[in-house]
């Protein structure tokens, strides 16, 4: 079972931007309730989409540089990166079925 990988300001380039497969990054923080709703869904998707898309989590409090670089102003935000660039932006909690549609459209 594949799990979301924690990424930081220092390894964001290597793990997300240089990735051969698309990467979904879950921008979150400990104080954010709705982020807790998103986390288990992203975890399930990590298993279902193993090998097709990498699931990553970035704590905005500990990694402000990356969060501000992508102008994150609301959490949870999910950004899908393909070949180093964000191609899809999902703000707020969305049910799993809707996330799958968004992911499938990008893959």
């Amino acid at each position: 079972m594949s799990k979301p990988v924690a990424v930081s300001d220092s390894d964001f380039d290597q793990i997300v931007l240089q990735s051969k497969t698309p990467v979904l990054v879950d921008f979150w923080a400990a104080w954010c309730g709705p982020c807790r709703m998103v986390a288990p869904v992203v975890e399930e998707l990590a298993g279902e989409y193993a090998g097709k898309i990498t699931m990553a989590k970035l704590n905005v409090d500990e990694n402000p540089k990356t969060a501000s670089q992508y102008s994150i102003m609301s959490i949870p935000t999910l950004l899908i990166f393909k070949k180093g660039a964000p191609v899809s932006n999902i703000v707020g909690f969305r049910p799993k079925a809707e996330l799958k549609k968004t992911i499938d459209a990008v893959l």
Partner: protein
Amino acid sequence: MSAKREYEVVIIGGGPAGLTAGIYAARARLKSLLVEKGAAGGWIINAGVVENYPGFPDGVNGLELADAMQRQAVKFGLEMLTAEVNGIGLKGEQKILKTSEGDITARAVIVAGGSDRVKLGVPGEEEFTGRGVAYCAVCDGYFYRDVPVAVVGGGNAAMNEALELTKFASRVYVIHRRGELRATKILQERAFADKKIEFLWETVVEAIEGQDKVKRLRLKNVKTGKKSSLDISGVFVAVGFRPNTGYLKNMVALEDNGTIITNEKMETNVPGILAAGDIRSSSIRQVAAAVGDGAVAAVYAERYLAGK
């Protein structure tokens, strides 16, 4: 997911009402399932500190309270499923729930799906969501350090948002279409006493403008008709709630505002379908009330199952 799933009680929604119903149903040794689309906790997980729930004189963090309620319910045997409910059908006395994870059969259903924030419905709101338009100050206040922000609304939610934002923002404008607040008095007192908060009365937002990010609001005074603009970096919308009853329209009797009509036993017009919490007509949208509703609903669900 194709296995036949049958329960005595299915609870829709994992907020305080649903979790309390779950505690009571599980302790009544009913085979019980709670269906929640995200994480348990309901609206309080957005709320920061809950100050008015009895037993916590120093307040309790909404996330922690939600976690504790969930652990308590699961401890007694409540099953949890992450799924979205899209409809309820009847087959004799059985209730068939159509969910994103397949059909579930229940003998009794407790609808406790709460409500979601209403949007303002003005130009720019959709476009700038996540880039200056926000709906949760506890989540997003952090991103607005030392910049001016606005809160739209005049109820408890709006005052809580405004007070939370004073921790971060340089100035907090509260924009309210009436000349007075509906918020509870203690919140009004705190907001009026806060030097960072400024009130713009009898004023509505006509548009949210910016470039990449929100830069200003177009405002209109509803009394004088005078238009103005206000430079801000963020706008937090707290103008009300809409019950999550879209899928129940042709199933149970609803008020015009979409809330579910119940009697004092939390029963709807359909035998074996009950409702609890913020989704219910005349709800006061408080954790203490939701918890009471949940207990009442579970007890009368049990009596319904026992043939009254």
